[in-house]
C-alpha cells in the first residue's frame, strides 16, 4: 500500500527530470566571453550585453529538434525583448555557407552567430544539440538545458521570467 502511494510521486519525478536543468560545470560560473561573427554582418561580443539576461542557443543545421527550438525561442524573444532579454543562436556548423543558409531559412528575429571553429562550443562544454545556456544580468551562467522534446511551455521560460525580474 505504501509502495503504491509512492508510484505517482516517482512518476512525477521521472517526468520532471528530463526537463530539469542539465548538470553543467559552468552553472554558477561567469560566462566565458567571446566575439563571434553574426550572419547578418558585424561581430558580437558577449560581455557587451552585461545587464541583460542572455540566452545562447547552440544549434547545428542538420539537427531537426534545433529548428523547432529556434522557432520556440523566437516567440520567447519577441515577448521578453522589452524586458531586457537578448537571444543569440550559435551555429557550430563547419561549413559557413550552410550555417548562413540555415540561419536565413530559420527566419528568426534574434542574431545568429557563427562558430565554425567550435571554440565557443568547447568553452561552454556543449555535448548535445540543441543546448540552451541562460546567463543572468551579472554575466553568470544560471541554467543549461537540453530539452529538445519539451512540449508546451518549456521550463526555461519560467526561469527566464525569474531572471528578468531579478
Amino acid at each position, binding site marked *: 500500500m505504501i509502495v503504491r502511494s509512492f508510484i505517482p510521486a516517482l512518476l512525477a519525478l521521472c517526468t520532471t527530470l528530463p526537463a530539469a536543468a542539465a548538470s553543467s560545470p559552468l552553472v554558477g560560473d561567469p560566462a566565458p566571453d567571446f*566575439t*563571434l*561573427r553574426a550572419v547578418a554582418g*558585424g*561581430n*558580437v*561580443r558577449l560581455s*557587451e550585453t552585461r545587464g541583460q539576461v542572455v540566452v545562447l542557443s547552440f544549434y547545428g543545421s542538420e539537427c531537426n529538434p534545433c529548428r523547432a527550438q529556434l522557432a520556440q525561442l523566437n516567440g520567447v524573444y519577441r515577448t521578453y525583448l522589452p524586458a531586457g532579454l537578448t537571444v543569440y543562436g550559435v551555429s557550430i556548423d563547419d561549413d559557413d555557407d550552410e550555417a548562413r543558409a540555415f540561419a536565413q531559412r530559420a527566419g528568426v528575429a534574434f542574431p545568429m552567430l557563427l562558430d565554425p571553429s567550435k571554440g565557443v562550443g568547447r568553452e561552454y562544454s556543449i555535448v548535445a544539440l540543441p543546448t540552451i545556456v541562460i546567463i543572468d544580468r551579472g554575466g553568470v551562467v544560471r541554467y543549461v538545458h537540453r530539452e529538445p522534446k519539451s512540449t508546451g511551455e518549456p521550463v526555461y521560460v519560467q526561469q527566464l521570467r525569474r531572471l528578468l525580474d531579478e
Partner: protein
Amino acid sequence: MATVRALTLIALVACCTAFAQDAPPDAAAAAPAVDTRSLDAQVQDLKKEVVDLNRDLFILEEELLFPANTQVAVFLSMDVGEFFALDGVTLKIDDKEVANHLYTPREAEALMKGGVQRLYVGNLKVGPHELVAFFNGKGPNDRDYRRGATLQFEKSVGAKYLELRITDRQRKAQPEFEIKDWE
C-alpha cells in the same frame, strides 16, 4: 460638553506620551548615524585596499609571465577611420598566429575616439623577428578590404613595444596601415 473636552484632553495627553516614548533621545539618534558613516568609510577603505591588491597582483603576474627582458607587446590604434571600418585583425610573429581579434562596432568606435588596444603580449628571444598583421574590414565604397603590413624587427634585451596604426590617407582616399617600432 465637559465630557467631550475631558475625552479630547485625555486623547491629546495619550498621544503626546506615545510620541515621547517613540521618539529616541537626540544623543541616541545621532549615534547610529555616526556609526553608519564610520562603517561606510571602513567599507570604502576595504574596497580601495582590494582594488590596490588586485592591481599589485596583476602587475606581479605580468612581471612573472612576461619578464621585461623577453616581453613583446603589440598595440593597435586608429586615427580617423573614415576610409576603413575595422572588422578583425590577425597577428603573426615568425609565421605563427599569436592573436586574432574581431571588433564589435563599440570597440571600433572606442578606437576611433583615440583608444589604444593592447592586442598581444608575449615573450620572444633576443634576435631578429618578423611581425605580420592582416587587417580585415570594409574599405572605401563599403567594399571588403583585406590588407597586410609587415615589420622586421630586432628584439634586444628589454621590453619591445610595437604599434599597429591605421590612418587615413586623405590624398588617395584610402586607409593606410603601418607598424611602428617604439624603441
